[in-house]
């Protein structure tokens, strides 16, 4: 019997998936754990791995096509299957399967193993009778992502090469042609969620400027000292910590509007908006730094770099994009002075951050040259009133302008 490979359900809300790219061709031999395809879901781009050994006999759904979850997208022939068909008298096939059923796996553990591509054969079950349970799979996933993150931070920094392609001045470029492009799954989600946000949440904005000299000075010192261990803190890493710490005295900023109630979240999970490159279909995702108020600048920096890199290269897993309680969108690195952002539901606020810009400033009654950064909060007025926003920004300002407290 050929093994049927179906479109897996990779997130709770996924109903359809798009094959972005096949990593195998008909006739290729694959083993369990090999990468078969990149699949775009409603939330992220994820890898589909093989759970079986065999030979690819059919690729039923071609690249760029969208199918329902559960649809057969390819088939594999088990090793030696073609021969068995030719020699029908060999009646010994079932023994292997009997051996495999020795594994007890809880349903959700099996599903998570599929999502994260964990080979169940390699997992030691901790449940009754050696049942593999959720905790066992998450432990494997954690270990893998920690080693990936560690490997990343110790590697030598790669030089930044400007990647803007230079368009020739003559001859009509493809981008000038009139065309209609169907929405990617991600763009559909962005369109739906942000319209919903903007239409249902009574948005308003409050802006404040921050003296960035002390923070930039401290960042320079720290980065000089940490260069040897491969750590480079970004301004955004500092802001993640500042915003998270400010929740302690301003819990409404870590809350969600719930119709007839306001829900205050326990953990502070700060989302960071990550723009995706054009070649991966563009768009943006919000990566989550969980319990950001309890993490050091170094940990925030490592996680943030890991999330950005993974988002751009492989796509983020549902766990890495869920459960945000507050979001930061930073366009400072593009030299933007200031802008306003749309709230990322169910958050009640988002901080839009501009660049730290060198400009004439008045310090102690004197005209001087200093770095100033403007940041704009967008707020859900059902949860947060203007005066509360002002108090939050004041808390933030005290942290940013006296950054030594971020180290403790």
């Amino acid at each position, binding site marked *: 019997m050929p093994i049927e490979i179906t479109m897996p359900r990779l997130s*709770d809300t996924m109903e359809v998936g798009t094959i972005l790219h096949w990593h195998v061709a008909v006739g290729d031999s694959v083993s369990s754990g090999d990468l078969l395809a990149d699949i775009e879901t409603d939330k992220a781009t994820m890898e589909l791995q093989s759970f079986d050994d065999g030979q690819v006999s059919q690729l039923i759904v071609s690249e760029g096509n969208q199918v329902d979850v559960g649809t057969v997208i390819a088939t594999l022939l088990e090793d030696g299957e073609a021969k068995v068909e030719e020699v029908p008298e060999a009646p010994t096939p079932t023994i292997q399967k009997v051996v495999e059923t020795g594994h007890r796996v*809880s*349903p*959700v*553990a*099996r*599903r998570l193993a599929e999502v994260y591509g964990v080979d169940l054969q390699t997992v030691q079950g*901790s*449940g009754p009778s050696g049942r593999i*349970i*959720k*905790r066992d799979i998450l432990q494997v996933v954690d270990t893998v992502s920690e080693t990936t993150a560690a490997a990343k931070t110790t590697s030598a920094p790669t030089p930044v090469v400007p990647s803007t392609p230079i368009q020739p001045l003559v001859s009509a470029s493809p981008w000038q042609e009139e065309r209609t492009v169907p929405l990617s799954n991600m763009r559909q989600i962005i369109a739906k969620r942000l319209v919903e946000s903007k239409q249902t949440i009574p948005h308003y904005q409050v802006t404040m400027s921050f003296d960035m000299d002390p923070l930039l000075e401290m960042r320079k010192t720290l980065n000089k000292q940490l260069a040897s261990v491969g750590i480079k803190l970004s301004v955004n890493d500092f802001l993640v910590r500042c915003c998270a710490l400010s929740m302690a005295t301003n819990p409404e900023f870590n809350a969600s509007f719930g119709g007839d109630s306001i*829900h205050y979240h326990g953990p502070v999970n700060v989302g960071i908006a990550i723009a995706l490159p054009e070649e991966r279909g563009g768009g943006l995702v919000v990566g989550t730094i969980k319990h950001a108020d309890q993490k050091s600048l170094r940990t925030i920096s490592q996680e943030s770099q890991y999330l950005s890199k993974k988002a751009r290269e492989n796509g983020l897993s549902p766990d890495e994009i869920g459960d945000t309680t507050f979001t930061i969108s930073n366009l400072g690195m593009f030299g933007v002075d200031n802008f306003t952002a749309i709230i990322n539901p169910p958050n009640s606020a988002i901080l839009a951050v501009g660049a730290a810009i060198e400009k004439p400033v008045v310090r102690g009654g004197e005209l001087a040259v200093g770095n100033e950064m403007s940041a704009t909060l967008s707020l859900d007025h059902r949860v947060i*009133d203007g*005066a*509360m926003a002002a108090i939050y920004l004041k808390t933030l300002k005290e942290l940013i302008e006296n950054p030594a407290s971020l180290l403790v």
Partner: protein
Amino acid sequence: MSVATAQRVIEFREALREAMIEEMRNDERVFLIGEEVAQYNGAYKVSKGMLDEFGSRRVIDTPISESGFSGMCIGSAMRGLRPIVEFMSWSFSLVAADPILNNAAKMLYMSGGQFGCPIVFRGNDGAGGQLASTHSWCVESLYANVPGLKMAIPYDPYDAKGLLKTAIRDDNPVFFLESERLLSTTGHVPEEEYTVPFGQALIRSEGTDCTLISFGRPLHFCLEASEELAKEGIYCEVIDGRTIRPLDIDTMVHSVRKTNACVVVDQSWSFASVGSEIASQIHAICFDDLDNYVHRVHSDDVPTPYSHNLEQAYLPNTRKICEAVRAATYNA
């Protein structure tokens, strides 16, 4: 900033009374009937003062004859009135099983849609405390088995009033199960008009590790267990189902998809129960989200003991719930 409003706090029994009084003022077809509801102000003082306001045509004392007055009220409901029938205890409804199950629940169906039966049966359900085997009935599993009726079990005064108003306005027979142990509990009930719709469960406490589902009084033990377990780092999401028919399985499943573990706490016996029904539905709808089978906590499979100690050990309690959650989350 938040505006501090003085919250009106009343007893569960007062909330029930307010629901009945408001609906009787609004709708002349509504009346209350049962043993001791009028002159004695109700065996549990739920109907206190109602005879004075509405008179003996609308607040009616009956003899000890559940089968008779239930059947009579079903007839009046079929002819256009909207009776509220108080059972002093649901234990006493057993002698009226034929009219309430065979007539009320099936009338719309059997009459081919000619006669509805907009009636509310309400009263104390479950162990009241040392009332022994025959007077400590939990009828939810027994009666929820029957199609054609609705069943609500309020946990706090807010829901007691809101759900009872919905029950009285409903065109179907509603079995409204109160707990004697909750009648004196207090809670916020707004002065403004409101109702609580059927079929919408309420998340009473949020959590990430185990979904705890219950109805009525055992929710108190679920919330206690949830606090106890939080100290061990196990965070429960406590769901108040509010109504058994209709059952808001969607909210329950949504939570289980998040926690991957579930314990159902049902004060009736385990065999063929509301608990086994919910467990079965969860297994069917979100099997792939479960890290363990759905665990259940019920009353023990014996008649209710009279002895105080034995009765406490027999009922679902905080200790049993904690043990079940630890087992369901592999923390035993």
